């Protein structure tokens, strides 16, 4: 079974802090994704990575950056957290273009 692990289930941060959300997958998948999930808006893609050090912006990249230094790890960085970044963040990976996404358990981030 594919395992996608997000380092924190819940995080509370202050406005202006730099925040790191970590995601690790154990199936040697090349593709990894970061989504945020908000009520009434569904899942929206923040960033996608198709290989080590390779990334593409999704629909809502503003205020976020990502890092993929190793194949198994994909990090989402909030350079200066703001209250409108309070959300559920979901990491996902997939084996190839024809495969479904496999999600981590999510990180619920609250920015105060």
């Amino acid at each position, binding site marked *: 079974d594919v395992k*996608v692990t997000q380092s924190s289930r819940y995080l509370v941060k202050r406005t202006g802090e730099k925040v790191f959300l970590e995601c690790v997958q154990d199936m040697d998948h090349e*593709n990894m*994704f970061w*989504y945020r999930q908000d009520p*009434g*808006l*569904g*899942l*929206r*893609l923040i960033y*996608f990575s*198709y290989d080590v050090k390779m990334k*593409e912006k*999704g*629909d809502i990249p503003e205020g976020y950056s990502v890092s993929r230094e190793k194949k198994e790890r994909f990090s989402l960085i909030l350079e200066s957290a703001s209250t409108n970044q309070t959300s559920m963040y*979901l990491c996902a990976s997939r084996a190839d273009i*024809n495969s*479904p*996404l*496999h*999600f*981590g*358990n*999510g990180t619920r981030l609250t920015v105060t």
Partner: protein
Amino acid sequence: EDKVVQSPLSLVVHEGDTVTLNCSYEVTNFRSLLWYKQEKKAPTFLFMLTSSGIEKKSGRLSSILDKKELFSILNITATQTGDSAVYLCAVRPNTGNQFYFGTGTSLTVIP
């Protein structure tokens, strides 16, 4: 603009009922449609559909796709309290790496 719409937004049923969840889409250059179940954690994969008219089945859950009318349904028969969850529909186009998600249907099954 590509979009995926799920209905109903929420549903409350009694154990043993049968439910039908709907997903309609407007996505350029369709590749596949996926269903996920989300309890209070990771969405878990249920089905991936690529061809019209072919039913996918897993236990009490089944799903079918209509590429002409641009929709899919997810059926759950003999519902149980463990079926309570948000069910997400996503569509994958042929180009790019995007998955377009609906906002989900929240299903509550009462004992």
